[in-house]
């Protein structure tokens, strides 16, 4: 196999890798700014300089020429080369900053150049803490600057678009943002204006950067030049806690990170998954984060005397549910599952009904034809439509569902986390005279109608799986504590600095942002206990998915471990769908 020598060590390679990417894939390091694995390579930041040379071959024999010590004779390139656009070839010899002083010096000097007109305002810059420029200057940069004259001034606080704000002085003109708009989102809305030390990105005059993927440029920007209008000045990144999750705003299931501080979700960023969303996600998927913090249902509610919903204790709510169930025949109960809820939740919901002799739950997909874009925004508005299908729920269109609800047979309705009134499937009148038991995360017009309302955990509070439009099952991790979870005890949860060191006696941590809700598996155990059913899952959702994989052929072999290792698992949706 062909080999390349990097800092004196030999590495084998396959195919035609570029040097910078190869170095990173080998776990080595080289500073860089403009390169991005999913975009074209302009090699304009000049930060990734290395020294490279080719071994000299004897033309006649084809043998490598050797020096008196028996070492290969190397013909060095006359100048340093940028590694990002350099092809790795057999026998190539590379020296990085680790083994060559000239390279080290070149990288340092380049950083001094880049910083000449940079405002160095890290203390007030949102990017600080996750800034490649800051990190690489710290590691490879000069101690100070020799440049003591006035810096070039450029526009600041420019509202490039509704969601993105530009500080042109911080920009290092790597063109990652313009390349993103040209090559990935294809909105072609950005360009670099002016030249030399006066240049910076902008839109055409009078145009606004309203690209539905605009916030990806904020992630891409290797400095604080592009910041999110929403997240600006909200938190220092090192105070936050980052948890992997899945975008539930549509059917694509983009892989994301949930950023919390003091148990509040403050932002969402994409997480790399080459099978689903690469490095990107749509802006709408980020904008839904207030759903996880605000307007949450906390503590169960019951309707007394047909009018007012009042908060109730869990015991009382479960007792009420028990009494209602005992007073009704299973045939009079209609169960409605939800593409907005996870596989585990729907499975348990169906299992619970099944044990009581209630017929298979119905569900109606939440599709808005024409709203997708063929990229990462789908017509499907729910994260788990395929999951519910594969569980064998009875798929109906919204008309059929309405008919079923209105039918005189349905006296009680069990509804899992689908806001049917809000999305226009049902009207409030359709539910009159029915006893509605709802399991939900957020308040809505629909939950207002519930006679009995159980608050359940949302995607950022539990580990649960969702099957995306392409039949890929992926899962979330708990990122936010509920009243009943504790990140120090739950091994699935991670701790940020403030989570670890904060106390409720300081200014940064409170106990306030914890919702009084239960995951469906815990709730079902309690309700089951009241009704004499044994549905307990000591191991939580992990044990539920195990049971799903054993009982449902479509999910066979599915475990959390595999989903974690393989970044989700492609299910065979074509052949395994029980009913559609």
């Amino acid at each position, binding site marked *: 196999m062909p080999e390349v020598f990097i800092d004196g060590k030999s590495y084998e390679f396959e195919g035609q890798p570029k040097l910078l990417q190869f170095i990173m894939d080998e776990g080595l390091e080289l500073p860089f700014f403009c390169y991005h694995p999913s975009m074209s390579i302009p090699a304009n930041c000049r930060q990734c300089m290395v020294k490279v040379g080719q071994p000299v071959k004897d033309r006649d024999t084809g043998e490598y020429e050797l020096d008196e010590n028996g070492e290969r004779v190397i013909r060095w390139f006359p100048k340093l080369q940028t590694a990002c656009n350099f092809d790795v070839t057999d026998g190539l010899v590379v020296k990085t900053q680790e083994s060559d002083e000239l390279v080290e010096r070149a990288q340092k000097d380049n950083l001094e150049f880049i910083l000449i007109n940079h405002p160095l305002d890290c203390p007030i810059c949102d990017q600080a803490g996750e800034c490649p420029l800051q990190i690489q200057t710290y590691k490879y940069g000069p101690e100070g600057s020799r440049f003591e004259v006035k810096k070039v001034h450029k526009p600041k606080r420019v509202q490039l678009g509704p969601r993105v704000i530009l500080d042109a002085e911080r920009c290092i003109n790597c063109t990652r943002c313009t390349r993103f708009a040209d090559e990935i989102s294809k909105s072609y809305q*950005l360009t670099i204006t002016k030249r030399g030390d006066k240049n910076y990105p902008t*839109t055409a005059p009078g145009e606004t950067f309203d690209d539905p993927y605009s916030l990806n440029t904020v992630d891409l920007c290797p400095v604080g030049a592009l910041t999110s209008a929403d997240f600006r000045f909200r938190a220092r990144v090192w105070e936050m806690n980052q948890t992997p999750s899945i975008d539930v705003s549509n059917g694509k299931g983009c892989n994301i990170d949930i950023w919390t501080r003091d148990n509040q979700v403050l932002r969402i960023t994409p997480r790399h998954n080459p099978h689903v969303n690469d490095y990107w996600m749509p802006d709408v998927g980020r904008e839904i984060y207030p759903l996880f913090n605000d307007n949450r249902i906390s503590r169960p509610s019951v309707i007394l005397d047909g009018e007012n919903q009042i908060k109730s204790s869990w015991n009382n709510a479960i007792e009420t549910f028990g009494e209602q169930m005992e007073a009704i025949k299973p045939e009079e109960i209609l169960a409605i599952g939800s593409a907005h809820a996870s596989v585990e939740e729907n499975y348990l919901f169906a299992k619970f009904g099944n044990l009581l002799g209630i017929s298979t739950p119905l569900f109606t997909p939440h599709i808005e034809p024409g709203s997708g874009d063929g990229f990462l925004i789908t017509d499907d508005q729910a994260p788990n439509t395929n999951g519910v299908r594969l569980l064998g729920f009875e798929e109906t269109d919204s008309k059929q569902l309405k008919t079923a609800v209105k039918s005189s047979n349905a006296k009680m309705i069990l509804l899992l986390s689908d806001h049917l009134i809000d999305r226009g499937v049902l009207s409030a009148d359709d539910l009159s005279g029915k006893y509605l038991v709802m399991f939900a995360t957020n308040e809505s017009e629909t939950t207002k109608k519930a006679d009995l309302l159980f608050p359940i955990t949302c995607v950022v509070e539990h580990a649960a799986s969702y099957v995306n439009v392409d039949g890929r099952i992926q899962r979330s991790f708990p990122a936010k504590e509920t009243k009943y979870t504790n990140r120090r005890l739950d091994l699935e949860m991670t701790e940020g600095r403030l989570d670890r060191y904060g106390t409720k006696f300081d200014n940064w941590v409170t106990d306030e942002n914890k919702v009084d809700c239960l995951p469906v598996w815990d709730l079902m155990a309690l309700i089951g206990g009241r009704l004499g059913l044994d549905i307990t899952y000591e191991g939580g959702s992990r044990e539920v998915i195990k049971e799903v994989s054993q009982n449902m052929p479509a999910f066979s072999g599915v475990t959390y471990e595999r989903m974690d290792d393989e970044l989700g698992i492609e299910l065979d949706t074509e052949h395994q769908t029980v009913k559609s």
Partner: protein
Amino acid sequence: MKYEFTEDELKQIEVIKARYPEARPATLPVLWIAQNKFGHVEPDVQKLVARTLGLPEAHVHGVAEFYTQYYKKEQGKFVLDVCTCLSCQICGGYDILHYLEDKLGIKHGETTKDKMFTIQQVECLGACGYAPMMQITNGVYVNHLTREKVDKVIHGLKNGEMPEFEPMEMRKVKPQEN
């Protein structure tokens, strides 16, 4: 303001486009057609060019902004591009720029009230050997500038006399004898 190309100009643009495998490279020559016609390529003209070529507006804007030779707003009758890049700077480019600014009573980037002169500060125009120098309206180079020479050129321009393009005196290099 509404800018349009005539049928003839559109035909000319088609000919230009046909020279390249795609529309992008036609941006430069078509911006020239526009500037020659309208005297500038302000944003609405850039949009016209983008529309005509079927290119993103941002792209045409970026190209127009890159070159000082394209005028992004209406300019005076004579645009004086004074070079202050390295060689010219060393040989007094800033002196000339400031002298000109004082003489015409405007700063660089501005146009005189009578719409006669615009001063631009530009980077190297490739005439470093004749520094300091300036260019007049993307055309004639005036080399080896002195204050007196500037006075003369301005006086001449006011009377409608464009200075001659000065041929470069090449230093004769004797072939080496071995």
